[in-house]
């Protein structure tokens, strides 16, 4: 660049002037701040702060009628700030820290003291960490009196869960101290939790953790060198009030749930009852179960290990994690798809030779060529095998594999072979085999005979009790369903997630479902109905038995049902592992549950007694 005029260099004076002016301004301000104003010096003296976390009350849980299922009880956590302790030890030699007395008060030995201290130090020297959680009320009273002698320590109040009814352990779930993995995951995202915080571990405590927990508050206290709180810092300007967690109302009926758990004593299996018009779960029974209060408090770890080691596996929620062959209850699905695809009509008859039928024999005695109504009432195996065959061989699909694909897609739309993903953790998908699975299995050479077991709910097909209850709900609703879920509403006006209020339509014409519904009614009311022994005069019930072969011993006893026939209030699925015929255990249990829910009480005392006292022996029982 040509330097045209040299007088530009005088411009340096303005720039230097600005630099010096700013420097002078800073020095003046610093002089005012550091030398003139003594205020800051005093503020600094009072500035040994303690940040006390204010834990909000966790939301309570109620059943659909407002009965309390879960509430909070106060416990005390002893916290330590390692840095304050080490500072005090270094500065305050006149008043030594009496470790021995401290250990005696807490009922721990010296090794445990050192171990706990090191854990706290590793977490943070400056921030409080839990030294001992859930100190008993008696110990708390003793220690609090002399706590001033132990600088760096203080108590923090927290709450634990209590379950007044001791029911529905798996559904309600539990909370526990946050694990390292959970903490690391949280640090990547929200960064809400600290070591020692409690978090929902299972059940709705886990699925609604964010709503139930509320928002932690903060209280900033000034403390002097003797560890005494000198009041609120900056008049509480930094304090943050905790926000209480939201209450939750479940769709569950506590009375029905408790009744179901009593019926299931001595049996392994599950009962799932849903309200067809909303998808809310009325009862979610898994057996064996346990008292949820066992997983609270300082014994939690011990009890958890015991439950984990129990060979009957009470920690498993069989309603969602158990996958079972549905057996004849699956004939409802097969029949509906066959009608919807136009492969059969209610008037279609298939030949049945009873025990001599091929390739699947029939275990029930009935007329030789039943129509649809007769076939469903008598649970005719050949009829539904033929219906299944007619569906996947239907020429309109242009090939058996395409036909099978249509069939599989329909089962998917009816909620099988996948999770509902609403608010139930640890759900399993069950199994409806894919085309590719069979291609691989049979090297591409397979047809309706190869996979015939599917037609009667055996073979590779596996469902969870929850999925089975949803099938009952679809038929009860004459074609649609809401994804089954636990929550009814929040304590405030917050809307529940949309996925649970979205109406699902599997695409089956209601007129076909009504045919099915009439058929299921005859299972109770018909002269040969497989559940005719459990018919009630004033409550028209509909249902379907299932007796499923399985590799674990005796047949599983299965049943799906709903009632009343018009505007059903309850749809239910019951699976009793190794219980034998569907009509032996599952059907009466379902019927009693229906009666209890609709009537509020039961009248069949003998039946109730037989079921409650009934015990089924299992190979793995102790």
């Amino acid at each position, binding site marked *: 660049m040509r330097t045209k005029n040299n007088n530009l260099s005088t411009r340096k004076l303005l*720039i230097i002037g600005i630099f010096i002016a*700013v420097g002078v301004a800073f020095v003046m301000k610093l002089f005012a*701040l*550091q*030398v003139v104003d003594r205020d800051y010096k005093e503020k*600094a003296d009072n500035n*040994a702060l303690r940040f006390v976390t204010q834990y909000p009350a966790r939301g309570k849980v109620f059943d659909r009628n407002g009965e309390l299922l879960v509430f909070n009880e106060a416990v005390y956590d002893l916290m330590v700030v390692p840095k304050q302790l080490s500072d005090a030890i270094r500065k305050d030699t006149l008043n030594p820290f009496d470790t021995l007395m401290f250990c005696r008060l807490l009922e721990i030995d010296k090794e445990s003291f050192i171990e706990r201290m090191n854990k706290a130090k590793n977490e943070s020297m400056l921030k409080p960490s839990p030294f001992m959680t859930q100190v008993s009320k008696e110990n708390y009273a003793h220690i609090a009196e002399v706590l001033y002698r132990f600088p760096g320590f203080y108590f923090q109040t927290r709450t634990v869960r209590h379950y007044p009814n001791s029911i529905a352990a798996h559904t309600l779930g539990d909370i526990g101290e946050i694990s390292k993995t959970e903490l690391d995951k949280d640090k990547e995202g929200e960064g809400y939790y600290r070591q020692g915080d409690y978090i929902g571990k299972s059940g709705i405590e886990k699925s609604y953790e964010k709503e139930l927990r509320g928002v932690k508050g903060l209280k900033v206290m000034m403390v002097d060198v003797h560890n005494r709180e000198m009041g609120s810092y900056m008049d509480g300007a930094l304090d943050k009030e905790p926000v209480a967690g939201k209450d939750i109302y479940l769709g569950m009926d506590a009375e029905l749930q408790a009744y179901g758990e009593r019926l299931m004593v001595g049996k392994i299996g599950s009962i799932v009852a849903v309200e067809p018009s909303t998808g809310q779960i009325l009862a979610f029974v898994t057996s064996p179960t346990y008292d949820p209060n066992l997983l609270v408090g300082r014994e939690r770890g011990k009890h958890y290990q015991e439950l984990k080691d129990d060979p009957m596996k009470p920690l498993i929620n069989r309603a969602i994690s158990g996958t079972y062959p549905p057996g004849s209850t699956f004939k409802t699905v097969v029949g509906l798809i066959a009608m919807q695809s136009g492969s059969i009509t209610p008037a279609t008859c298939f030949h049945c030779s009873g025990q001599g039928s091929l390739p699947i024999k029939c275990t029930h005695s009935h007329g030789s060529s039943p129509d649809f109504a007769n076939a469903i009432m008598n649970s005719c195996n050949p009829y539904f095998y033929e219906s299944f065959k007619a569906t996947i061989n239907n020429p309109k699909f242009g090939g058996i594999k395409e036909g099978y694909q249509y069939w599989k897609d329909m089962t998917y739309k009816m909620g099988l072979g996948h999770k509902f993903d609403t608010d139930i953790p640890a759900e399993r998908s069950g199994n409806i085999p894919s085309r590719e699975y069979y291609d691989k299995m049979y090297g591409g050479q397979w047809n309706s005979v190869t996979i015939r077991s599917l037609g009667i709910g055996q073979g590779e097909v596996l469902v969870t009790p929850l999925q089975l209850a949803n099938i009952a709900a679809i038929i009860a609703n004459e074609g649609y369903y809401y994804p089954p879920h636990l929550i009814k509403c929040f304590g405030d006006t917050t809307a529940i997630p949309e996925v649970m209020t979205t109406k699902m339509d599997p695409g089956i014409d209601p007129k076909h479902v009504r045919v099915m519904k009439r058929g299921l009614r005859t299972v109770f009311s018909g002269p040969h109905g497989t559940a005719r022994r459990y018919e009630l005069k004033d409550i028209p019930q509909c249902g379907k038995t299932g007796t499923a072969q399985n590799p674990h011993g005796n047949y599983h006893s299965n049943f799906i049902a709903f009632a009343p026939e018009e505007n059903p209030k309850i749809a239910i699925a019951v699976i009793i592992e190794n219980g034998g015929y569907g009509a032996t255990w599952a059907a009466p249990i379902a019927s009693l549950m229906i009666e209890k829910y609709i009537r509020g009480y039961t009248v069949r005392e003998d039946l109730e007694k037989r079921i409650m006292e009934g015990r089924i022996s299992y190979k793995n029982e102790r």
Partner: protein
Amino acid sequence: MSERNSIIGKIDWVTVLIYLALVIIGWFSIFSAKYDEMHPSIFDLSQVYGKQLIWIGASLLIGFVILLIDAKFFNAFSLWFYIFFLVALLAVLVYGKATKGATSWIEFGPIKFQPSEFAKMATALALAGYLDRLDVDLQKRKDQIVAAVLILIPMALVLLQNDTGSAIVFVSFIFVLYREGFPGAGWAMTAGATAILLFVCTLLWSQKVMYIILGSLLVLSVVYYIVTKKKGIVKMLAVFAFMFVFVFSVDYAFHKVLQQHQQNRILVMLGKLDDPQGVGYNVHQSKIAIGSGGFTGKGFLQGTQTKYDFVPEQHTDFIFCTVGEEGGFVGTAVVVLLYVALLVRIIILAERQRSTFSRVYGYAIAGILFVHVAINIGMTIGLVPVIGIPLPFLSYGGSSMLAFTMMLAIFVKQDANRLNIL
């Protein structure tokens, strides 16, 4: 005489000694701020103070290498430096890692690197290289546009990273443009200062009060122009019209253009918002720490405020707190004095250069350093809203330490070589 000896004789030792003094003050302040009883050695490489020592060592090495390189190299390759760091800034936008809301880091294995720190230096080089060309004349419209674009492109890229602080630093190029006679640069500086004044006053007192003040000034000016029969009354009226429009739009701009946390930081600085939980907390604690230092300070390692996690970011953006608490007014005054001395020295050296390249580069880096120092120290004592940029040579951080050292070393090399230019 070997090349090395000749360079030692020619470099400006005033600059180098001020630089070394600041680096050492910084290192000890970081040690004090992050002092950990379990790691009492300042050389402990597992701690930030040990790591800072590595960065200081690496910076000195690179600075030394720069002194040995041929001075013409930086002019010749200035455009390539610039292009390289523009690409790096783009890469950050694509592959960058977000820290505290800004996406300004890029990772190569274990090494994190912040291209925006280097982009300032690269821009200074590119501008100096461009203005050094014989065919460039800042009185020509085309050359003015090129010069402005050279500055605005990296500024825009940094702004896209949501790193407002580093983007503001690019405003510092107004000083060098003013010095080189860029038309309107002086006017822009005045207008900028006036705008900041109007902005602050409007937020402090409300628009109504500002209308009354401006209105009174307008009446006085009109009377003055009429009485003295001065020319340019139209121009004067236009200036007032602009000021009215500006005041009118302050509220809108403040609420609609600035993000919430930026609004809060400004309101806290003006004392309009008491938000000690958020931004207010930083500034409040920072002022307590500095103020509690008194005249002579609490002594090295004796600070309490900066050690108990009271001051956030104490070893990076708020390192000046440690200086204030432990060194007292004596310490802070010395540091401010060192910075002013360094800035004035750079300007004096820049003016004695024969080549346009060296002069422009000197002014550019003086501006960059000035904005960093003014914003950072101003922030810790509550004169400037909280803007997260490092204090040159003092703050912890490898990228900024390396970048500022390289920036200064290149200038010292140019200066040492000034007599070789004909």
